[in-house]
């Protein structure tokens, strides 16, 4: 029996989003969507978090930050890419400063489509991520080695 499913704490980082998905992630925490019903708390602190929610595409300066945040999170952890920019780079894919989706830097577990992703879609995505989190927790419990920290190729 794992408690990860009942108490997932998330950390939100705006990689280079237009704020649209950002404010929808925040809206999930507020009365109308209230994800605290599932025990989800926005910790704002990588050391407390289980789920890394990233909005927006990755560019050169944020890449380091994302890696830093991800590596500071203790295991087990999952990554949810919210919005099309976080998934593929979206409409900004072609610009000179965008490297692409979050998966160019980190292993992404769940992609949430939408521009901007709706709070309902984000809730669905996080709920889906919980299953993955639990599998990872079970693997760790069974004695699997901790996955190595993700290194950025400079």
């Amino acid at each position, binding site marked *: 029996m794992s408690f990860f499913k009942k108490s997932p704490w998330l950390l939100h980082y705006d990689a280079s989003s237009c704020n649209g998905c950002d404010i929808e992630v925040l809206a999930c925490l507020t009365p109308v969507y209230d994800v605290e019903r599932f025990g989800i708390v926005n910790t*704002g602190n990588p*050391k407390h978090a289980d789920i890394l929610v990233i909005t927006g595409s990755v560019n050169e300066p944020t890449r380091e930050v994302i890696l830093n945040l991800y590596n500071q999170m203790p295991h087990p952890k999952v990554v949810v890419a919210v919005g099309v920019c976080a998934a593929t780079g979206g409409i900004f894919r072609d610009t000179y400063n965008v490297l692409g989706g979050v998966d160019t830097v980190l292993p992404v577990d769940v992609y949430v489509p939408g521009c901007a992703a709706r709070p309902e879609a984000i809730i669905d995505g996080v709920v889906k991520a919980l299953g993955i989190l639990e599998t990872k927790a079970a693997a760790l419990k069974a004695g699997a080695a901790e996955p190595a920290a993700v290194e950025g190729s400079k």
Partner: protein
Amino acid sequence: MNTTWLLTGLIALVAAPVLGGLLAGFDRILTARMQGRVGPPLFQPFYDVFKLFEKRGVSVSHFQNFYIVCFVLFTAFATGLFFAGQDLLLVVFALTAGGVFLVLGAFSPNSPYSTIGAERELLQMLAYEPMLLIAVMGLYLVAGTAIGPTPAAPAVLDTGKATTILACPPGDTNRLSASNQAASVSSAPVPASNTVASNSTVAAGCGATPCCQEAGLPACGTPASKTRAQADRNFKVATILHNARQGGMGWRMLLNLSGIFLGFLFILTIKLRKSPFDLSTSHHGHQEVVKGLTTEFSGKTLAWIEIGHWYENILLMGFVWLFFSGLHPAVAAALVAAVYFLEILVDNASARLKWQTMVKAAWIVTLVLGVSNLLFLFYFNR
């Protein structure tokens, strides 16, 4: 300490985290409802802590976790002591020691956020500690037996019902029996065997309960005058409870301590880390120092900090109970719940203030409400 009290202390050690977790669960649901949302399940705090135990931790310095163990041990120790009816002063200092360890733990990783959190926690201690001590003194003056008048010249007052020694809080029927021998016998509750059985109900009521001994009062059969000195000056929780209940102080206890009680409510907001004063760390990490004190802790250590807070909260609620201890237990319980509700309401109706404001406000409250109440007890309520 007799076995009954020892047992309650041990039970409290086990029960406090459970109750504290439930209290936190209620707190989160109520807070959510006040904010117009549904909120988490009642057992959410337990889920959180169990999850944290499963999670891997990251620690920056080796001492970090050791300090937290000390924090939890001291807090639990303080809680145990309190519910074992032991010395209130010791409880307060053990609690403070726990707090100091938490601060040390937060200092040790050397991260800027947790350092600022630790500094703020120290400022918070600076703000609430005087009032906490005044509260202890107030309780002591009113119900901690008494700083009796010198045996040679007891002041005598006609309460209308019977002649009572003034130093005894009004309505303290225990002392009625003693009034026969007012000049020579102490103001301490007189064991049944020593008393002229003029007021048999009271005497029996007192003698029948084992609380005289539990409270460390002169054992039945010993001449009261001999042990008077140690019985008189006593900070024990058991004594306070005994005097308040057996003495039937009722509302008068709260009335006599009204200033101190209000002041205590004020600092309770700091201690419970509620909104106007949740400077060093708060339940939600939306603030300038992220999570302040707890920023650098993770996994098991964070879970232990949470458990430590549960202990602390139950201890504080027990402290609040002391103010109501003269009342019927059901009334007292309802009042304690009301106090907690009030704290949640205040949490949800105020912004976080700055530390300067906090220290200033806490000290003004301490001076105005606490000290004046104390002076009143010293000079007018002897």
